[in-house]
């Protein structure tokens, strides 16, 4: 597909560009007109490729659907610390730690429960301790290279949970959420004390 389309694209470019080249040599042409030309050519090229080519998304919608399915964990909303805090505070969200058992035992965000990815469904649901499929669930993972939050989110989507969120993946976000939750608890305790 690409060689033929690319050839057609080069020919179209030359044909479209020819009058402008003549105009330029005769007295100049606006660069704005040329940028508009680039955009029009791009739209034409994108349209022709995806409408006419068997690999194009218009004729191969299963590829698009497959990619969305593969990446459905990664496409979930990723919340900032303040958004995550509001979700937990205002919407009775469940905070889930997707890291390893050792990491969780050594330190975890306050009130987080650990749910392992890659385990059988009955174990996962037992660890989750909720059967409410619409309850907001916020999953976090370690900073940097950790992607197990997406894996767990994908598995929970398969289990029928519909209200899933991921925490922005930096150590600062995780630590800041922990601080906010501890401050909230301290404030609650202070109010309750006589």
């Amino acid at each position: 597909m690409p060689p033929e389309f690319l050839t057609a694209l080069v020919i179209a470019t030359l044909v479209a560009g020819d009058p402008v080249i003549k105009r330029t040599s005769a007295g100049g042409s606006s660069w704005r007109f040329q940028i508009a030309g680039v955009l029009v050519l791009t739209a034409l090229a994108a349209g022709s490729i995806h409408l006419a080519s068997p690999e194009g998304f218009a004729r191969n919608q299963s590829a698009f659907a497959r990619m969305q399915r593969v990446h459905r964990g990664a496409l979930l909303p990723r919340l900032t610390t303040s958004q995550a805090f509001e979700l937990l505070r205002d919407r009775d969200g469940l905070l889930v730690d997707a890291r390893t058992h050792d990491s969780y035992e050594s330190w975890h965000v306050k009130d987080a429960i650990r749910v392992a990815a890659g385990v059988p469904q009955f174990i996962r649901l037992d660890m989750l301790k909720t059967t409410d499929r619409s309850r907001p669930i916020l999953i976090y993972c370690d900073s940097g290279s950790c992607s197990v939050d997406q894996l767990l989110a994908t598995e929970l989507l398969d289990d029928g949970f519909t209200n899933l969120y991921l925490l922005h993946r930096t150590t600062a976000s995780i630590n800041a959420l922990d601080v906010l939750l501890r401050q909230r608890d301290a404030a609650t305790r202070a109010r309750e004390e006589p």
Partner: protein
Amino acid sequence: MTVSRIVIMLRIAIGLIFLVAAIGKLNDPAKFLSAVYGYELVGPTTGLLTAITLPALEAVIGALLVTGTWRFSASLAATTLAVLFVVAQAMAISNGVRADCGCVALFGPSALSQATLGRAVLLLSVCVSLVLLEWRAELNASSGRSAA
């Protein structure tokens, strides 16, 4: 070697890079869509629109640069795209994303890293040089026309 020859060589080299990048993406649009989603910067719809338009834009810019059509505008568009590549890679790397960089197929599949970011910055600096050289050429040409 005259400046104009350097400009022509730069323009054709960048044009070929864009064409090769476009061919790699057009060969397998689904794989490129996967790479776009892998950056975790856009949602499903924006990701799809990006995966549809970006390779076509690269092909158009590449063809314009190689054929020497609309030289200044094409180099300006190439620079804009290069800025987008650098910003997207920097954001994804700072977010700790580990994904295929979706870069030029010539270099093979490579994970997002400082090296791929460095390559994008190098491409950007070459594009900026080309824009400046083409701009100077445009100014010279227009002053020549005014004098005539």
